[in-house]
């Protein structure tokens, strides 16, 4: 297994995540897509930590740190989503526009 294979996987994951985050109207799917992009980054961290020019444990540490932050983000995001759903009876991201007018 070489570094470029990991990077390719990471790139594919990131692109799927980006595509989903920009095009899906369902907020839950948008949140999941953001997780996908974060995980693509984590794969990059770990891949460089193992196969990069200067392998070290820092990459692992950052990956774990990012997972913790992502968990917190998901919790806050879902909580906000539920509050939004209670108010507006919808989870469509393009209807979250009450600040616009």
């Amino acid at each position, binding site marked *: 297994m070489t570094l470029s294979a990991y990077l390719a996987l990471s790139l594919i994951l990131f692109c799927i995540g*980006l595509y989903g985050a920009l*095009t899906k109207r369902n907020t839950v799917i948008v949140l999941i897509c953001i997780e996908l992009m974060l995980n693509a980054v984590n794969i990059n961290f770990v891949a460089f930590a193992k196969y990069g020019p200067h392998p070290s444990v820092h990459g692992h540490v950052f990956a774990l740190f990012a997972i913790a932050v992502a968990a917190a983000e998901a919790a806050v995001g879902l909580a906000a989503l539920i509050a939004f759903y209670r108010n507006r009876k919808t989870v469509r991201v*393009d209807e979250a*526009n009450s*600040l616009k007018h």
Partner: protein
Amino acid sequence: MNLAWVVPLFPLCSFVLLLWFGRKWKQTSAYVGIAATLLSLLAAFGVLVSRLGGATYEANWTWMKIGDATLTVGVSVTALNAWMLVVVALVSWLVHIYSQGYMAGDERFSTFYAYLGLFTFAMLGLVLSPNLLQAYMFWELVGLGSFLLIGFYFYKEEAKAAAKKAFIMTRIGDVGFLIGVLLLFWQTKSFDYDDIFRAVGNGTLSPGMTTLTAILIFIGAIGKSGQFPLHTWLPDAMEGPTPVSALIHAATMVAAGVYLVAALFPLYEASAAAMMTVAVIGGGTAVFAATIGLVQTDIKRVLAYSTISQLGYMMLALGSGSYVAAIFHLTTHAFFKALLFLAAGSVIHAVHTQNIEEMGGLWRRLPWTAPLFLVGALSISGVPLFAGFFSKDEILAAAWTNGSVGLFWLAVAAALLTSFYMFRLFFLVFAGEARHRHDGAVHEAPMSMTAPMVVLGVLSVAAGYIQTPWFGSFLGEWLTDGAYHHEAAPGWIAVVAASVSLAGILLAWLMYGKRTVPRDWLSARAPYGYELLRRHYYMDDLYRSTVVALVSSISRLLGYVDRYLVEGLVQFVTGTVNAIAAAGSRGQNGQAQTYGLVAAAGLAMLVVIFALTGGDWL
């Protein structure tokens, strides 16, 4: 006399008060107006009395300084001004009283009195002005008062059109006046009458310039005094309430043109050409308007054409060099014409129509109005012993001694026509049998209407005796500070004047009273001539098809330019801005996903550029 400036202030107070409180006071408004004009009248009498024993008074206050020119405002009490003050205040007061009866029950009763106050203020201010600039401002204010009062019944289309017509036509004259005033200021560096006369006297003002300015200012007088060719507004102005016709369009405002020429008389005297213009326009108008008056069927229009004709007389007198005769006729005309209009108003009040074909047999029904109308008619016709006889005689004598024989015979012809159409009117309205059943009983007007007419009736006789060949010429001597000498006019002129007026009355009696001459004598023999007179020489049609058509086609053209060119340009600019704004606001749609997409696209573009160029530019 140094309190002369208060005279115009009373009507101004009345105007302001009635504008504020008129709606609350309703019918009481009349008393405010009457009281204010009475105070004015008393003050004017005071001024006249002190001027009788004193000298000319003038006071000026600096208004503003422009460059090295100082503009002043002030009051000036010359003999002419003091005399005009009394005439204007007196007629205005009587009309105020009369209107209380005539306008009773009108919804805008207090507004009517407010406008009357404004007009009286402006007219009194005009005759007190010591300089042309101030006179011009009051001149325009007078025009405004006239506009408001002609259009008083603004819900009637004709009244609206007449008000606009009066305003626009007098404006045409006023442009001439304004140019004349500015030329005088340019030449003499002053608006003051006295400075201008001094400049005329010592030759600062060249003869050509004197003639030019005199004629330009006379154009203003033509507009205001309804002289040919700017006369067509005056008959239409009869759409206004009748007391207004009496005050403004017979006695005072239309006389403002005569007053202006009289006030600037030394300027005119210096130019023979200007004098000739004034005399010819005046004499021509006198006959011209009188012929139209022969065939009109609206009682007020007959009187309106008669006013134009009489104003022509005054202009003829001025042009013939007799300042005194003009002012004398102005005074007597103010009284008898106001009387005739008020009597006409009383007739209209009684029978609710203005068409003389529908009247007749009113002599017994209106025991006050009818004799008073007769007095006015005798006076205007120039029957001996009535005021009009003396003033008309004075004018004829002036025309004769001035050497213009043609104008003299024109004036005699006008006198004949005047007595004919006045008595045609009288016989058609008052004599014979009623030709039409009127709704409700025909009854005499209330006291408030008959009393002013009685006063004017007395004046229509008495006013003549201030200047007669028998008892001396008090007015003439006073107006000219003793320099007046009665022209030794041939005695036969008075005989001619008296006989043509009696001939006119006799002819009218034969045609409309006794009917030995058939009424359609003229229309049967000269149908085209009759039609020409009935349609006022097609003057209105001529103006409509030339001036009005020209101006409206120009304005239509400019309208298209405005609508399509200017508006198109504006539309283009706003359209462009709107399109840009729409594009911008589509970007700012508030959707985080759109922003993300744009950011990602931008990033992708940067990456592509980076990849293609190899990153050398970083």
